[in-house]
């Protein structure tokens, strides 16, 4: 982010600064509270939570809830833990992200450097596709996946995420390539490079940052999706979010809150790690997805 804080102009006194820092600290606590609750309660026995000790540190530390959430907890009808669903999510996310990023890059390249009549309209159509309420496509998509023999499978989910992810990938690359000097493309044309050579030799080497933004955005979105997962998967192809919800909402037996929290952290961990490692790109993606250009 730019460094020209308006603070360079606005001066605040010591008292005001104390108030500002206090407020900022309070809000840090507010945002961290649920994370704290999840972490400490995933590491304590159930009895401590039931006794009203949700906010305390564990008196007795235990990783049993994690083991249970990962390998033995009852999810739906099977006591498999979340592990197979974690695997499902990975199998779903990796190809969907990879393909939609590649297609997005090519689309962005065409829409900015090989413009043709009506390209803006096509882009507008692609873009609007990102924002539709997916309730509008659930019914026909369920039938279409059935026709394609992909109903209730991980490849089916990959396909769905691919279709509805292209708009955003294209948006990112298009806005990025719009800033990319067209003279470079023209120079390469005069040098004799063709469509794909220009893409591979001139555009791609400069596309690192936006590719990271796009991959992170797609990864986060697809990993965190619930609606498509709940609508188009079977018991054995559910992604992590759906399995977590099943774990938490199961109405049989004692509610094992500590296991729920451990499961929730597992579901959050991949995207959270990405956020911590590459937060800058994550924020860029968020901003580009809303405050376009």
């Amino acid at each position: 982010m730019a460094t020209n804080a308006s603070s360079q102009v606005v001066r605040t006194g010591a008292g005001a600064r104390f108030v500002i820092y206090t407020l900022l600290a309070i809000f840090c606590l507010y945002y961290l509270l649920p994370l704290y609750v999840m972490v400490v309660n995933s590491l304590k026995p159930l009895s401590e939570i039931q006794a009203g000790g949700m906010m305390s540190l564990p008196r007795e530390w235990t990783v049993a809830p994690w083991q249970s959430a990962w390998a033995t907890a009852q999810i739906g009808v099977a006591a498999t833990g979340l592990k197979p669903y974690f695997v499902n999510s990975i199998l779903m996310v990796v190809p969907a992200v990879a393909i939609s990023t590649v297609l997005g890059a090519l689309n962005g390249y065409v829409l900015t450097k090989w413009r043709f009549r009506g390209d803006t309209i096509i882009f507008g159509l692609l873009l609007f596709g990102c924002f539709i309420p997916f309730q509008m496509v659930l019914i026909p998509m369920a039938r279409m996946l059935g026709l394609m023999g992909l109903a209730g499978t991980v490849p089916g989910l990959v396909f769905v995420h691919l279709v509805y992810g292209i708009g955003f990938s294209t948006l990112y690359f298009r806005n990025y390539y719009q800033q990319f000097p067209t003279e470079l493309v023209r120079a390469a044309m005069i040098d004799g490079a063709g469509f794909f050579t220009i893409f591979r030799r001139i555009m791609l080497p400069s596309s690192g940052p936006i590719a990271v933004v796009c991959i992170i955005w797609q990864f986060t979105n697809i990993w965190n999706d619930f609606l498509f997962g709940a609508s188009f998967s079977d018991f054995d192809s559910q992604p992590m979010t759906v399995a977590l919800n099943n774990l938490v909402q199961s109405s049989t037996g004692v509610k094992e809150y500590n296991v729920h929290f451990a499961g929730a952290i597992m579901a959050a961990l991949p995207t959270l790690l990405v956020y911590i490692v590459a937060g800058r790109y994550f924020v860029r993606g968020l901003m580009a997805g809303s405050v376009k250009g």
Partner: protein
Amino acid sequence: MGFLDIRNATKSYGAVKVLHETNIAVEEGEFLVLVGPSGCGKSTLLNMIAGLEEVTTGDIAIKGRSMNGVRPADRNIAMVFQSYALYPNMNVAQNMAFGLEMHGIPKPERDKAVAGVADLLQISHLLDRKPGQLSGGQRQRVAMGRALVRDPDVFLFDEPLSNLDAKLRVDMRTEIKKLHQKLGTTIVYVTHDQIEALTLSTRIAVMFGGHVQQLGTPKEIYDNPANMFVAGFMGSPSMNLFPAKVAVKDGAAVARIDLVDGGVASLPFAAGNAMATHDGRDIILGIRPEAITDEDGADRKSKAIHRIDARVEVTEPAGSDTFVVSNLGGKEVTGRFRADVDVKAGDVFPFAVNMEKAVAFDPKTEQRLG
């Protein structure tokens, strides 16, 4: 038939015609400059020669071969861009070799060609650097090197100096001129800077509004501008243009000019001037600042120096000269005086006008008369 022939070429975007029928024949080894204000169509024309934009109608031919439908890569041209357009991910040597690589030249030959051109441009020590590590002037050289290495039939330059600071721009201008004289290549060069046009070119096409206003050598353009646009655009400070009326007496033509304080000044045209047949006609008189001087500074070789007394409005000392602004025919008129002339605003001062250098324009068509 020239080396590079532009024949009735036009360009339209939808209903908007950005380039009207244009005909230019460029000889081999010529340095043609397309000059004009932005939006005049000069860059469009250059892009059409490059093949980056299709001609709408007409034809562009290089060495007698029509280029319509021929890809930029197959035209055997090279181009230097305003932003230099160096590939940021490749080093200087790779940048220069890229075009050869794309044309399937084997590596040893590429290396040899790059080394030769780098030597010529004195950029051998930069070959391993990335464009981001170069200064503006170095990038400019690399961009030229990339063009030279291709050994093309025609070089195209698109405002190549406009991103440089003033001092470097002058140096590079000289450098480009030297290079042209040394290599004898055919160059088409686009600029909005009329000084660049005058210093570099062997011929200039002044463009405005999608039309070529005048095509000629720098001297023709400067001394005999075809119309008032060319007169005003070329030269700095630009040519003085002010209304006058022709009067003919005994076969000799005189320009009569209204003065600010009510009087009328008379300036006889040089002997044999075509104005002799235009008695009574309203004209716009065009006289360059260097033809309006103090009396001692007047051109001694001229046979048509005439004195006119006018009130000085502003003086602008510019070091080597002093520009003196007065008013003739209701228009501001600038004269170029020697620096040490003692002249002050408010004075009525004798101006020496060299009528050999005067040109006349039709006030309606704005075309030059005679």
